[in-house]
């Protein structure tokens, strides 16, 4: 603690007073009186000593005689005031001089005069006013120091946070003007917008444009937890719906009730220029023709991340196919709501007009320049993906598409592969890169369901009866499942996926067989709705496929999935 603050803090109203007077008798009178009043007294015999003691002793108040040897009171006062910072030490002259010129000069320096010989009653009254001044000065100084300390703390904390954010985001895929451009421009030191990109093992590109409520550090903290699940799941090749659902869960679990994250997720298969897109709470994504005009817009489909119920249906992506060189543009509301685009009432049209007048590679920068010129009040972010230039080809299937697709996936997963949690995701990724997911979208929902049945009920022989009845039942199911999976020594799941025909319609045939004992599927068929098969989630699968049948004892299931937009194949 500073010495200067001790007297007040210890005794309440006592302060430190410097008395500068060359007359010993005056020193004694003042010192005795001030001590009795509870103050601490420092004594100087002349002006030189007064300046020195003021510097080292930090008095709260100076009582200064004018006529002194060595250095007079006026000069000493001048030097003392020059050494004070913004907060001046109050200074009172003690004087018997009746010279008007000296009085005027003195008043320019001091806060007041006390006439000699000193009347103690007057001294006391004047001191009372100055003690109040000293106290408020001290409070002011303490507050200044506190603000400086807080500022320092905040700066240090911000630096740590900025460092972490920067290091985390450095791990996302870098922009490449050939196919992926993006930019994020915070309105403050931290961004509540984030763009992430990651290649899947199957060569798709998973993208996320996220915009957390508000901006600055709190918003940045709210989006940071999305990085690791997004990146990890993309690296494993998890489907877009799975990623979206997991991110929704994270936000809901971690953030306060008034915080959410608007997000657009995209998965791009450049081999076929097909996109999956899920937009929760962001402005529309726009598909742009080569010339910049809008071909299609994908409006917000669901609530933002954190607000959706944990229901798979909420995370089904939309499928979009881009033509050669077409672009997909995603923006956060910082751009969409910016006066540069919103002023005329139709942001989509204003953005499209700018895109049309801008060369492909400059489009992102043009958006940001316009928004910043018009006045940035929110974080800005945008992503522009350019579809590959594909050789001209027939989009419609030719008469024998089974041969034209020419793909059949067949694999058998043993205990080791089954323990890997991404087994199905890898298969779907493979199917996706062959264009099968694009042509038969239900595959990404049906296969995980069939695989889970084969593994849980076939290979692991778990009874799903209580799974959905209670939270406890579900937890018991999960822990039993993990135990058996860890201990699994033999068993397999076989998956076979192949394009086929049902009458004239193209279908995808999916066989899933397991090493288990099967179940009484005929009883299930006879009994109707609430039957053993329902525990196996088959009702949901039935709703998504053209046909579902069992072979043998029920340990092999075969489904036929209709092609996109080709629903007449459904029975």
């Amino acid at each position, binding site marked *: 603690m500073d010495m200067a603050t001790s007297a007040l803090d210890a005794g309440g109203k006592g302060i430190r007073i410097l008395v500068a007077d060359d007359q010993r008798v005056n020193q004694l009178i003042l010192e005795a009186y001030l001590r009795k009043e509870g103050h601490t007294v420092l004594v100087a015999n002349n002006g030189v000593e007064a300046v020195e003691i003021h510097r080292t002793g930090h008095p709260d108040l100076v009582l200064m005689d004018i006529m002194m040897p060595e250095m007079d009171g006026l000069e000493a006062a001048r030097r003392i005031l020059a050494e004070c910072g913004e907060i001046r030490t109050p200074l009172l002259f003690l004087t018997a001089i009746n010279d008007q010129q000296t009085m005027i000069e003195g008043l320019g320096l001091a806060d007041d005069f006390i006439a000699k010989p000193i009347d103690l009653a007057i001294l006391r009254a004047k001191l009372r006013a100055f003690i109040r001044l000293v106290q408020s000065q001290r409070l002011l100084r303490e507050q200044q120091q506190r603000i400086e300390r807080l500022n320092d703390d905040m700066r240090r904390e911000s630096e740590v946070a900025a460092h972490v954010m920067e290091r985390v985001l450095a791990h996302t895929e870098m922009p490449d003007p050939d196919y992926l451009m993006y930019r994020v421009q915070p309105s403050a030191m931290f961004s509540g917008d984030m763009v992430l990109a990651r290649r899947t093992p199957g060569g798709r590109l998973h993208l996320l444009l996220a915009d*957390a409520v508000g901006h600055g550090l709190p918003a940045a903290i709210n989006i940071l937890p999305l990085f690791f699940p997004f990146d990890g799941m993309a690296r494993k090749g998890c489907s877009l719906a799975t990623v979206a659902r997991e991110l929704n869960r994270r936000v809901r679990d971690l953030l306060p009730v*008034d915080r*959410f994250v*608007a997000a657009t997720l995209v998965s791009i298969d450049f081999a076929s220029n097909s996109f999956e897109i899920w937009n929760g*709470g962001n402005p529309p994504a726009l598909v742009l023709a080569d010339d910049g005009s809008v071909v299609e817009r994908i409006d*917000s489909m*669901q609530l933002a991340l954190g*607000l959706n119920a944990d229901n798979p249906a909420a995370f089904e992506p939309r499928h979009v196919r881009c033509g050669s060189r077409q672009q997909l543009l995603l923006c956060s*509301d910082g751009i969409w709501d910016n006066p540069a685009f919103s002023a005329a009432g139709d942001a989509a049209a204003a953005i499209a007009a700018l895109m049309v007048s801008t060369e492909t590679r400059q489009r992102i920068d043009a958006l940001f320049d316009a928004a910043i010129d018009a006045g940035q009040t929110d974080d800005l972010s945008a992503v522009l993906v350019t579809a590959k230039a594909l050789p001209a080809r027939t989009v419609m299937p030719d008469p024998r598409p089974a041969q034209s697709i020419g793909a059949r996936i067949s694999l058998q997963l043993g205990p080791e592969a089954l323990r890997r949690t991404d087994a199905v995701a890898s298969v779907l990724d493979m199917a996706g890169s062959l264009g099968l997911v694009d042509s038969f979208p239900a595959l990404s929902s049906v296969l995980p369901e069939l695989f889970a049945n084969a593994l849980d009920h076939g290979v692991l022989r778990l009874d799903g009866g209580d799974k959905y009845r209670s939270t406890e039942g579900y937890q018991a199911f999960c822990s039993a499942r993990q135990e058996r999976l860890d201990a699994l020594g033999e068993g397999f799941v076989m998956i076979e996926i192949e394009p086929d025909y049902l009458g004239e319609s193209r279908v995808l045939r999916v066989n899933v067989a397991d090493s288990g004992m099967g179940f009484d599927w005929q009883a299930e068929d006879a009994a109707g709705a609430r039957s053993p098969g329902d525990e196996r989630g088959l009702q949901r699968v039935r709703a998504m496929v053209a046909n579902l049948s069992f072979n043998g004892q029920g340990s092999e299931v075969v489904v036929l999935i209709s092609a996109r937009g080709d629903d007449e194949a459904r029975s």
Partner: protein
Amino acid sequence: MQIATKAEGQRAIIRLTGRFEFSAHKEFRDAVERVMQLEGIADLVIDLMDVEYVDSSALGMLLMVRERTNSAKLGLTLANPRGMVRQALDIAHFEKLFVIS
């Protein structure tokens, strides 16, 4: 932003005017607390007729009110959103969480 509150029978109305953004946080919360203290209120209406803009923090504040009214078993309606406000509620799909009239 200006906030006016009134009660009509069992219904409390909070009427907002201007830009509904983070800076209105405290006033808005105080207004909500105030009307929720009123005797015999069964429904809360937030009138957005004269609101020209909402930011995402304002949407967050509405979620907070929703939590409060849900736990107090009160009805909650967002009334008369227009222009950019309507658009913001649409983009956020708040019709899935709120009664909007």
